[in-house]
């Protein structure tokens, strides 16, 4: 992949669009006492984009992600992934869950966890293992292949989950609050890991978080969800360049301005309502 643009011109070809979401509405419950979660959400994600979805808890971030993943059918609206409407979990889309201890199989070794999704394909065991090893090297876990997930630290377990997603050779990775259960240092490491992986493999990453700093630090675009039911309050372009650093990038004036902008966007619709 040689065209991992940070920002795309408006005239980019349609083939470059990975996710196209239009008029997405989701309600829980029956018509009478339905609870609206999403109300006309729309946005577009292009190949190689790193997009973070921020918003307060209860803003429907996880619901949105489950709809994108095809795990949940939205009440109304259209989601297109790679040119095909999403009606079931689509091919070429990999998920990383928040709760790594629940999303890995404790009865499988690290390598077997990573290669389990590949068994369905036409690869031989050796090819699967090689593909899994490449992914594990990518996340820096080449030495832990024959261990079990529960023998690893939380951060390493989440690396296994990321490796599983990468070994799947996806077009896009969806991540639901992936770093919410690890300590701050590990979190910073995993953030940088995702940035380098994105750059290296040219995949799109869609990441849900409630942490504004994290969103600004990682994103090419921050998609702010706000209000109840949630709408896309703004899509904020992040022009921090492709080389980012936990200390220097976060110390820049641009970073501070962007985080203020995101924060204000989250606050404003709520303030209007009260």
């Amino acid at each position, binding site marked *: 992949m040689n065209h991992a643009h940070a920002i795309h011109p408006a005239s980019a070809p349609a083939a470059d669009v990975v996710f196209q979401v239009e008029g997405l509405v989701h309600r829980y419950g029956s018509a009478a006492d339905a609870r609206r979660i999403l109300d006309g959400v729309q946005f577009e994600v292009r190949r190689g984009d790193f997009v973070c979805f921020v918003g307060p808890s209860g803003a429907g971030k996880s619901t949105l992600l489950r709809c994108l993943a095809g795990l949940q059918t939205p009440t109304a609206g259209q989601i297109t992934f790679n040119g095909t409407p999403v009606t079931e979990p689509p091919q070429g889309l990999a998920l990383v869950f928040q709760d790594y201890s629940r999303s890995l199989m404790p009865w499988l070794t690290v390598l077997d966890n990573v290669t389990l*999704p590949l068994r369905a394909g036409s690869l031989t065991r050796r090819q699967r293992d090689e593909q899994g090893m490449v992914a594990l090297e990518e996340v820096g876990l080449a030495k832990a292949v024959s261990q079990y997930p*529960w023998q690893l630290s939380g951060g390493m377990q989440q690396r296994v989950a990321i490796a599983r997603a990468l070994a799947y050779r996806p077009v896009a990775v969806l991540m639901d609050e992936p770093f919410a259960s690890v300590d701050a240092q590990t979190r910073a490491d995993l953030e940088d890991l995702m940035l380098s992986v994105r750059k290296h493999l040219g995949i799109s990453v869609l990441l849900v978080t409630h942490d504004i700093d994290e969103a600004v630090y990682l994103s090419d675009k921050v998609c702010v969800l706000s209000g109840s039911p949630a709408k896309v309050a703004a899509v904020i372009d992040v022009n921090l360049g492709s080389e980012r650093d936990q200390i220097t990038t976060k110390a820049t004036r641009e970073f501070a301005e962007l985080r203020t902008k995101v924060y204000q966007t989250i606050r404003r619709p709520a303030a209007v309502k009260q």
Partner: protein
Amino acid sequence: MVAPFRPHSPMRLSRRTRAVLVEVWLPIVLVGLWWVLSARYPSIYSPPLQEILRLFRELWLFEHARTDLLPSLVNLVLGYLLGLIAGVALGTWLGLSPRLNRALWPTLEFVRAIPGVAILPVFVILLGVGPAMKVSLIAVGTFWPILLNAIDGVRSVEPTLRDVAASFRIPLKHRLLHIVLPAASPQIFSGARISLSVAVILIVVSEMVGGNGGIGYFVRSAERSFAIPEMWSGIIVLGLMGYVLNTLFRLLESRVLAWHRGMTTRTQRDGR
């Protein structure tokens, strides 16, 4: 027979020796008491242990082991495996389809409540007193605990793992083999453990009632012909058989569920 229950774990030799001692002192004392008391106060019903052991050696090493013990074991293993396979298969199916499960659960609960021994006469009428009756009776008796545990285990598979399977488009065969069954295996094993003791009871009872061979039949006919020491030797064989089967089961369990043990001890130590 005393079967001290404690999970095995790899230990250093000295600790291991001590652990063995802790486990065997009571059986040694009990056997010693039996030996001394039965020698001092012999009666028709409790002949001296020395006599029983002499007969044990004479009868069970190895003539009757072949003619009586082996057929019992074959029937037991066959019936147990049938019940196990049927229980796991149907349990998985019901566990995966909550609707079907809800529709069948009350019936299952009722049928399960009928003790296996109670349906023995029906089986004798239907199948006679041959191996077919014994194997079927054991299969039916072992089926229920495994079925109910398998349903429970399959139903309690972590929902996140279902999402993982769905999002990575893992086909049903791999879901069953690599996700559902391993996740349910600790539960299935606890059902299988209950079923194993049920199977031992059923083989003995079926042979005592409708027998024309087997270890249960041997004990019963020895008792009827007042061959009391022979009867006791048969009972010892039964005890040993149950003990060995249980030990083999535990070995298998600790191998298959090594991940589970490792995970739970790790979790407890970390205090999570």
